[in-house]
């Protein structure tokens, strides 16, 4: 036996640095061999089909597109992410390599963590790409405001939670059926959990697909006159982060047998995660619909968010300017065009509004899931008087095209403006009703003669026929040349408003 003098071995790398390098290499390997990479085109395609197209069909309002993106992106990503994570979680058992990798230098939790992190990384990359595309296009189209990051953050926090829960399921029940089962369960839970929401004080609002009062849906009237409230989003992020920690901690717990020092931190992390998630659910339960249409959670609420936003209104160049919140700039031309005939009739009359201004809506929670939406403040206020109105889509309801918005403005705001000038309404004299009907007729408003004056409770008015004498007077007055009618109104409008003009005195 001979002894060979070998050169002294190079100084060993510090243990911690070596571990980090090995961990990074493991993560790189996992990133290259991850099923989520294959699922990215599926998720991106679903996002485009279900969310991007839908958002682009909506008006370019940040609040509308951000809330649509939060729920839509999550539903588009849920199946690919949950399925891929469960598939990766069951990999060792499926490939019968569990025993083989157990004897490697890396503890099991480190291997699992790397696999989960790689899955989550690709899911997040895909999600952020989708958010960037949607927000990028919206930034070019929107007339006012900026991107809302809280809805995007909720989506980003959902992916690790979803991935962790599915990964744990794949680890615990390793089978080729686990991935589709987990994906189906995740979709079912997310898409149909909202069925359990009852009113604004429901724990189920913690579901990350919920962006506001569930029964109102994406509402163009929210987040433009007042700040977008992050209260519910904060609770959701807290819940999702807690869930992620709890699942990851629980995953590391059984491995504590092999790595004794890990047991206690894993238990602490799991417990902290559970506490955070539970607290978030409890907070969501204290939420309530605020007057501006969003969910306010008292413990998370910042009173500064209740102050109205200041904005430079955009106004039309009509006889009486029509002014809207700049976020709705794209609706100004059709709104102004719809009101022009009415405004031409009443311009320069004594008591006519100096401006038509868009107002904010007020939301009130009704019984159960019902929500009532009305205008904040009176129709007419200030000196010189300003007429306030809501655009039709601020009252929630189905999406409207520009033409439908114009038609709705014409049939709701038009008669209301006339009524406010003439004094038509409950208790009006026959002469006031006849003049109002005549002005509506000459402005070309639908069913002008038959429709009664609109009220705040009935903005579009009810179809109530005028008495025959009033109808005849209205037709006679409407048949006058516009200049004669206008001159008569300039002279007699004050008397008409005070009820001192009779039907017989009308020209």
């Amino acid at each position: 036996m001979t002894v060979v003098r070998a050169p002294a071995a190079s100084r060993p790398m510090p243990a911690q640095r070596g571990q980090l390098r090995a961990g990074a290499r493991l993560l790189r390997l996992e990133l290259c061999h991850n099923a989520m990479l294959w699922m990215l085109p599926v998720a991106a395609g679903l996002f485009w089909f279900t969310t991007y197209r839908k958002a682009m069909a909506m008006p370019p309002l940040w609040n509308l597109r951000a809330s649509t993106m939060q729920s839509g992106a999550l539903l588009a990503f849920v199946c690919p992410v949950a399925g891929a994570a469960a598939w990766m979680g069951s990999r060792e058992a499926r490939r019968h390599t569990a025993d083989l990798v157990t004897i490697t230098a890396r503890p099991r939790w480190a291997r699992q963590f790397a696999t989960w992190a790689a899955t989550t990384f690709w899911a997040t990359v895909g999600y952020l790409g989708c958010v960037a595309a949607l927000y990028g296009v919206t930034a070019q189209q929107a007339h006012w405001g900026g991107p809302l990051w809280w809805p995007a953050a909720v989506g980003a926090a959902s992916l690790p939670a979803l991935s962790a829960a599915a990964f744990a399921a794949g680890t615990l029940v390793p089978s080729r059926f686990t991935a589709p089962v987990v994906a189906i369960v995740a979709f079912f839970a997310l898409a149909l959990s909202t069925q359990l929401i009852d009113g604004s004080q429901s724990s189920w609002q913690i579901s990350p697909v919920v962006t506001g009062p569930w029964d109102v849906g994406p509402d163009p009237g929210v987040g433009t006159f007042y700040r977008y409230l992050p209260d519910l989003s904060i609770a959701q992020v807290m819940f999702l982060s807690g869930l992620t920690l709890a699942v990851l901690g629980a995953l590391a717990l059984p491995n504590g047998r092999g790595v004794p020092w890990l047991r206690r931190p894993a238990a602490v992390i799991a417990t902290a995660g559970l506490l955070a998630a539970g607290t978030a659910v409890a907070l969501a339960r204290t939420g309530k619909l605020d007057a501006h249409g969003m969910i306010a959670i008292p413990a998370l609420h910042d009173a500064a968010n209740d102050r109205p936003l200041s904005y430079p209104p955009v106004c039309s160049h009509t006889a009486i300017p029509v002014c809207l919140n700049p976020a709705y700039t794209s609706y100004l031309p059709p709104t102004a065009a719809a009101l022009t005939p009415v405004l031409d009739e009443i311009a320069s009359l004594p008591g006519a509004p100096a401006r038509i201004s868009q107002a904010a809506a007020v939301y009130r929670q009704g019984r159960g899931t019902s929500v009532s939406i009305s205008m904040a403040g009176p129709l007419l206020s200030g000196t010189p008087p300003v007429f306030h109105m809501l655009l039709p889509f601020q009252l929630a309801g189905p999406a409207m095209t520009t033409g439908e918005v114009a038609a709705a403005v014409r049939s709701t705001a038009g008669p209301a403006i006339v009524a406010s000038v003439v004094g038509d309404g409950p208790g009006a004299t026959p002469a006031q009703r006849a003049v109002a009907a005549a002005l509506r007729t000459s402005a070309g408003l639908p069913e002008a003669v038959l429709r009664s004056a609109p009220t705040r409770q009935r903005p579009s008015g009810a179809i109530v026929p005028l008495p025959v004498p009033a109808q005849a007077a209205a037709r006679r007055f409407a048949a006058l040349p516009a200049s004669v009618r206008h001159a008569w109104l300039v002279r007699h409008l004050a008397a008409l408003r005070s009820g001192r003009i009779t039907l017989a005195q009308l020209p």
Partner: protein
Amino acid sequence: MTAGPAHNVPATAAPDRRARPARPPRAGTRLLRLHAASRRVPAAIAAIAACAIGLRIALLGHWDTYGALQLPLVFEAGAAAAITVTTASPIGEPERVTGRWLPFLRLVTALALTAAAAGALAAAGTGAQMAGGPLDVLRNLAGMTGFGLLCAAVLGGGLAWAGPLGYLVAGAYGLYTQWHRPALTTPWIWPARPPHDLGAAVCAALVFSVGIAVISVRGAHDPAGE
């Protein structure tokens, strides 16, 4: 080594198709059983039964319009995913080079499972207010299974569930757009079409036919060992 002896092999040693020994009477059944076992067909049947039972239980609950419409689709997608997962082969190349009956076995397996799933889901909706009814079940299930089979041919049997589950999201969105414009009217999103819509039925049947043809001839794109 010389090549001589090889030339002396009598020609009769070559296999003669006509002179092939008669197949034992139960060999076909055994082959089918072994193929089913290798593809986890019993587990798939259990999953399909679970979907049918789940649908039945869910139909007992109270759902709003969205829920009631989307509910059957979720369970149909689950059953379709279970069918497509059975395309994964644990044997791989050796099976492909030796199994002459493999295309027929794949065809029979996929058809039988689809028929069983359609029957089970339709039965689950009997006597309950299931949106769409049995025709809807058959059309949606067949179409989604077709997508899954095509996915199996591209991604492998293990990831074939991406087809039906991806389509589930698209189909649920199609149903959603019936209330929130712009409505999707393309027959390719057949869950959003009425049960008697011919175009939707043709599209679903086409996808199913192509899927089953591709998977029968080519099999799933699978590595061996899983």
